[in-house]
């Protein structure tokens, strides 16, 4: 921000109060600020967003650490007594002082406008440069403002101790795979719902959501800290027609008060050996069992699973001999796959509604977002199986569409960007699964085929490194485990400071956003998912009728002009 001469020859910053001055540091290790004696060290939270005003540049920085220091051992050996308030005041900022570590994230030439935007930090400010609280304008300059013409910026929260919205660039967000991480109960599901709302509202991608805990479609629980929980709106309630609910457990979906748009049935013939292979861990299959599945497939093709499961216990060994498979392995495979018969949604033949994957694809083609609810079917086995089967085939279709587009190059052939949301992502993307599941492929091939992932996980360290490094934007709530923290920061430069920031986030509704969709890492207080947000998303259900009419009128006027 420019400085203004105040008539006395002294240049005065236009920002607020100075919170300290830079005293030492390096480009590699970050900078140290001596905190102004009038400031309270307790206000300097890790993750706070501050601006260092250099001579030529403003450096947008994050508070990463703080330290109490004293220039004199004597003071520490004989601290002022408790009642000696005056002496403590005198010492504070002189003999005893506070050092705050800052990590510059971006720099911007002073007085720069539009085109000379923020750039990566390649310099450091000189000694005694002033450090100040960031202002609303700073945040907007860096992160953009919601409500721009292209509908690019979507606010997902505000910086610590500020009320200004921090936006993520939804176009960039949709372009690549993204991750939402955090311990259980830190707000992952809320963050995911927010991100999805952004994608849907600004129409930047169509979504396929594998909703394991029924939190995205219609009504989700919100913990209130007391015994009575309340509900928040799901995507269907916010976006109506633009969201379709598919259900594996229609009864449960109906019980929550909504008629699913489509019931999901999966026939045995839709299950490929690869789908079973991805269940190896979950079913505790050994490699030879999978081998023998391939043998069955070699003979019976699509009907392999149906045929195998049709065998009764004692006959399986016989069957193994017939097809030349190892009897022990095939018996094990048979026994374990029998579990699939317990799933009510597994059917012998294709359902009269036609193939569920085709239905989903139709919806996606029309730009309608699909939430697939699992209802009571909350087992990991079920989730893995269904998500894999469906995603594999959807992906195949997308590959075809993309190839067609690449050959015709007609704009109307360009596929809609698809984002697939999966929870418990480490189950799909751990080092061994990532090589087999379709999700590993999607994560690795990036945006080539217009499909990307939104992975939600509480244990990012379980995810394959290669996949992690492909994740564009990471929104991370509190993590405690050192391994998880490390995993989230894989492939991010200058992470020393961020580590401490991550470990010191609040246990709810705070997150660190890093990566492709934001110009610099930033800690946010997550946007409140509640009445105001519903309204911002254009859902007027809870708005009093009079106000609603006014809003609709305003919109109509905007569309068709006042007269």
């Amino acid at each position, binding site marked *: 921000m420019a400085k203004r001469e105040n008539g006395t020859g002294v240049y005065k910053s236009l920002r607020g109060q100075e919170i300290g001055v830079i005293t030492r540091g390096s480009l590699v290790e970050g900078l140290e600020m001596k905190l102004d004696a009038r400031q309270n060290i307790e206000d300097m939270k890790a993750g706070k967003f501050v601006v260092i005003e250099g001579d030529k540049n403003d450096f947008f920085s994050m508070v990463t650490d703080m330290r109490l220091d004293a220039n004199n051992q*004597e003071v520490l050996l*004989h601290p002022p007594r408790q009642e000696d308030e*005056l*002496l403590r005041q005198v010492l504070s900022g002189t003999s005893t002082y506070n050092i705050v570590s800052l990590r510059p994230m971006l720099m911007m030439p002073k007085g720069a406008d539009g085109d000379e935007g923020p750039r990566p930090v390649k310099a450091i400010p000189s000694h005694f440069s002033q450090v100040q609280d960031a202002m609303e304008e700073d945040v907007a300059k860096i992160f953009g403002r919601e409500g721009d013409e292209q509908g690019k910026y979507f606010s997902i929260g505000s910086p610590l101790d500020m009320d200004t919205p921090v936006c993520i660039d939804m176009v960039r967000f949709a372009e690549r795979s993204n991750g939402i991480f955090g311990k259980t109960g830190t707000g992952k599901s809320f963050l995911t719902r927010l991100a999805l709302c952004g994608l849907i509202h600004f129409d930047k991608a169509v979504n396929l959501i594998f909703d394991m805990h029924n939190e995205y479609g219609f009504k989700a629980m919100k913990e209130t800290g007391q015994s009575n929980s309340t509900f928040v709106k799901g995507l269907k309630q916010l976006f109506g027609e633009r969201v379709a609910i598919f259900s594996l457990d229609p009864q449960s979906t109906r019980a929550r008060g909504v008629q699913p748009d489509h019931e999901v049935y999966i026939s045995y013939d839709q299950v490929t050996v690869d789908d079973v292979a991805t269940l190896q861990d979950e079913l505790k299959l050994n490699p030879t069992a999978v081998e023998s599945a391939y043998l069955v497939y070699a003979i019976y093709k699509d009907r392999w699973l149906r045929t195998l499961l049709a065998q009764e216990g004692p006959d399986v060994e016989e069957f193994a001999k017939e097809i030349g498979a190892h009897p022990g392995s095939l018996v094990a495979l048979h026994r374990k796959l029998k579990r699939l018969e317990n799933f009510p949604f597994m059917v012998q033949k294709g359902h009269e509604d036609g193939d569920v994957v085709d239905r989903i694809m139709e919806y996606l083609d029309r730009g309608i977002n699909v939430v697939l609810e699992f209802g009571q079917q909350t087992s990991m086995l079920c989730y893995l199986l269904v998500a894999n089967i469906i995603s594999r085939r959807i992906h195949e279709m997308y590959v075809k569409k993309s190839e067609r587009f690449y050959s015709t190059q007609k704009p109307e052939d360009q596929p809609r960007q698809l984002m697939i949301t999966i929870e418990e992502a480490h189950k799909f993307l751990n080092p061994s699964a990532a090589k087999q599941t379709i999700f590993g492929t999607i994560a690795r091939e990036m945006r080539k085929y217009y499909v990307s992932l939104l992975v939600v996980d509480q244990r990012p360290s379980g995810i394959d490194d290669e996949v992690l490094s492909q994740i564009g934007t990471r929104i991370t709530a509190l993590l405690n485990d050192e391994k998880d923290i490390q995993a989230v920061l894989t492939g991010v430069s200058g992470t020393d400071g961020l580590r401490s920031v991550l470990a010191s986030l609040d246990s709810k509704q705070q997150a660190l956003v890093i990566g492709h969709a934001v110009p610099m890492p930033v800690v946010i207080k997550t946007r409140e998912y509640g009445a105001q947000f519903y309204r911002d998303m254009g859902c007027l259900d809870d708005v009093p009728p009079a106000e609603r009419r006014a809003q609709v009128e305003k919109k109509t006027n905007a569309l068709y002009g006042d007269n």
Partner: protein
Amino acid sequence: MSTIGESSNPLSRFMSDESNAINASSGPERSHVGEVVESSTTELVAEARQLHGAPSFGQFVRVDSEVPIVGIVFNVFTHSIEPNRRPTAYGKTEDELRLEQPQIFELLRTEFQALVIGYLDEMGPVQILPPQPARIHSFVHVCSEDQIRAFTHTDDYMRCILNTVKVPTDELLIAALRQTMRAHGGDRAYLVRMGKELSRLLGDDYDRLSSIVRRAAY
């Protein structure tokens, strides 16, 4: 006392009204507390107008002269004016003595020493030693609170005190701080600020700092 009485004197804002008035009328009741009898660049000795009537230890005083000089009283002493006649003990109260032997008080004088810390010029207080020392026989006044405030806005007076070897430094600092505190309306923030400056001036001497701060606030 050449220019001081003139109303156009740019320094008049540093003079208390009452001293201007008195200078103008030159009446019998003067407001000065002493008269310079020995003077150098760094310190001066003045004779108190009244016996035992010197300004207190640590008080800020102003010497009327072409450039009014400001100092801090760092020593007060009373002695006999006749070199060979030392006062002797009488075993009586002062009141009894004044009745019975008034002449002995005529032979006593109170004097005080002040450390020069700066002067006043058109622009305001200057924290630099004056170019010329005070003239002998100049009158010495006690500084008004406004003058003290103006003069003690920065920490330079403490530096002056600390830099002098001849005076009981810490005691003088404490006395001066207490004076200035009063002039600043007992503002604790001011004391904290001065304490911080002092901490810088004293360097590593935490023990000394804490003792001064504690006693100044007492």
